[in-house]
């Protein structure tokens, strides 16, 4: 009995059948009656909004396709056997479906090593970045101190001035690393730190890593938005400054922290600039991505007497495949978390 009732009743509680009777004939006639009463305005308006929404849908789909098309193209390319690459009649759907490209790409990229390396390197670096950024952002958001505006202006300068213009001297600084001549006194010569990850970690802890100014900016905005009463209550209850920060403020800013961590992770994962300069010694994906063609040539000419270059089509298929492999983890993370990503992106209110 109850089930039947549920079926027959819509969400407003009206019996569905009665409404359907109404919609079939009467609503149309009613609509035209109302239309006549309005002097044709209603129909015009209704048609206008219909045409507009259709145009909008077409536009959105077109633009979305524009963005997705290269990706889809790469996906279809990556599943083609080498035969299909030369076949003019094969355009999007591969005729001879194969995963050979993935096998070649994963051996070239040395995937079982590089993947883990990239994951832990990105993780380590984004944790280091976040560590310094939260401290600095909290300092800017909650304390008043002399020259505060000046230092925050410095943060903005760090955002605007790209590291490329002074990277050569930064590189040399780490090549001959020395603090007041301490290291040359101990080891006899300045340290060469460029073959390790230390310089990059130091940069990140100093808040000068990849896009760290941006994270400071976002987190400062978030900390400013949290109610001050929380801190005051903690202070009155005898909580010290650092304890308040760790126990009260951080748990309240979890969402923003996750957003910044994700951004940091993704940007580090895809970054080629810092990786080329500071992470040359670690086997990570960007390093292989940068010169995938050379590695492919090496792979093709393996076991042969002289060097042979891979055919252009195979070259393209392999680079497309390895790009997909490189994107995949980040894309999965993005698609899983995109709701929160978009939401907290707009909550943080990136404003100047």
């Amino acid at each position: 009995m109850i089930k039947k009732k549920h079926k027959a009743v819509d969400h407003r509680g009206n019996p569905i059948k009665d409404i359907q009777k109404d919609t079939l004939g009467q609503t149309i006639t009613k609509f035209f009656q109302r239309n006549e009463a309005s002097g044709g305005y209603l129909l015009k308006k209704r048609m206008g909004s219909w045409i507009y929404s259709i145009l909008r849908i077409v536009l959105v789909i077109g633009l979305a396709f524009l963005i997705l098309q290269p990706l889809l193209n790469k996906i279809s390319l990556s599943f083609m056997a080498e035969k299909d690459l030369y076949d003019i009649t094969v355009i999007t759907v591969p005729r001879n479906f194969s995963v050979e490209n993935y096998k070649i790409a994963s051996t070239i990229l040395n995937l079982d090593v590089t993947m883990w390396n990239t994951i832990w390197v990105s993780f380590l670096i984004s944790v280091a970045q976040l560590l310094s950024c939260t401290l600095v952002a909290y300092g800017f958001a909650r304390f008043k101190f002399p020259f505060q505006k000046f230092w925050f202006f410095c943060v903005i300068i760090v955002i605007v001035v790209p590291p490329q213009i002074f990277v050569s001297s930064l590189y040399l600084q780490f090549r001959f690393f020395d603090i007041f001549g301490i290291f040359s006194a101990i080891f006899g010569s300045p340290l060469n730190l460029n073959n390790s990850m230390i310089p990059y970690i130091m940069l990140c802890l100093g808040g000068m890593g990849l896009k760290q100014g941006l994270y400071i900016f976002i987190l400062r905005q978030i900390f400013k938005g949290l109610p001050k009463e929380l801190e005051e209550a903690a202070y009155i209850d005898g909580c010290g400054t650092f304890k308040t920060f760790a126990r009260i403020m951080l748990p309240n800013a979890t969402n923003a922290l996750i957003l910044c961590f994700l951004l940091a992770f993704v940007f580090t994962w895809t970054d080629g600039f810092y990786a080329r300069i500071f992470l040359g010694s670690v086997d990570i994906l960007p390093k292989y991505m940068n010169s995938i063609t050379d590695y492919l040539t090496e792979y093709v000419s393996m076991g042969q007497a002289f060097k042979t270059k891979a055919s252009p089509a195979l070259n393209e298929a392999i680079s497309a495949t390895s790009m997909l492999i490189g994107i995949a983890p980040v894309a999965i993370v993005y698609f899983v978390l995109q709701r929160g990503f978009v939401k907290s992106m707009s909550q943080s209110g990136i404003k100047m």
Partner: protein
Amino acid sequence: MENSTKTNASITMPEKQPKKKEKPVKAPREKLGKSDKMSLKTKKAIYGYIFISPMIIGFLLFFVRPLIESVSMSFSNVVLQTGKGGFILEPIGLQNYKTALQIDPEFFRFFTEEITQMLIDIPAVMIFSFFVALLLNQKFIGRGIARTIFFLPIILSAGVFLEMDVSNTLLQEISTSLEEMETGGSSVTKTLENLFLTGGPADQYVQIVFDMLNRIYDIAITSGIQIVIFLVGLQSISESLHEAAKIEGCSSWEAFWKITLPMVSPMILVNAIYTIVAFFIRSDNAVMTKITDTMMGELNYGLSSAMAWIYFGAVALILAIVAGVIGKWVYNND
């Protein structure tokens, strides 16, 4: 137990207090009062400096110092001492700048190309991202999916992946030229281009528009963050403004120009600056590649810093002009 001790304490306290009432109470109060007023402020200031100290240290060590050094490097010849370690700067005046601008075969060409490209791209990116943000701000079926897709370039256009696309451009050019030979160049844009390009004086401006159209993919893929920023701006406009305008008989066209655009104008400034900076540092930038190659490949640190400073000078000039022009026009809410 706890209760009893507490009551004990509360009972004993008043007994003790009257004994030392006259002398010590006054002195601590004065001390407390004075030092508290001072100390809370200074304490907070000290804590503030403790919290931002990583950034200060990093800023001085890894930003200011290399920045100053790179200025001095650009005016000198850098000689590496392989034996002892360290390097020597031999001052040579403006020689590096002259080399970069007049002698180096590639740099000046790349430089002018990138700057003109930037000037074309900035308005294109701004218009595209604003348009898409307007679209994504409306309510329609599948908006969530559409947003996901439009924000995807934030990830895809970053770093290495863009570079990989670029490294394959040679192949792409070959394939497109082959396609053109096959189809006889009968695409819609080609036909339109032939129609509009009549050889008149306005041709170069029309050509710019066609260049933009041909680069629509590049523009779409670089405008991920800009779309987000514009969306934030659009969503912060209060609904009541539009409602009031509608009641007063404002059409949505008028509402766009009179309400939406002025209210979003601060975001236009932010976006313009962001776009210029992003264009400047993107990894497939020919000038930047040239600079890194000069540094890492030829080990010519002086020349590479000179190049970087020339490029940065030009970009800073553009930034200043854009910020000045848009900043005057921006509607200030406060």
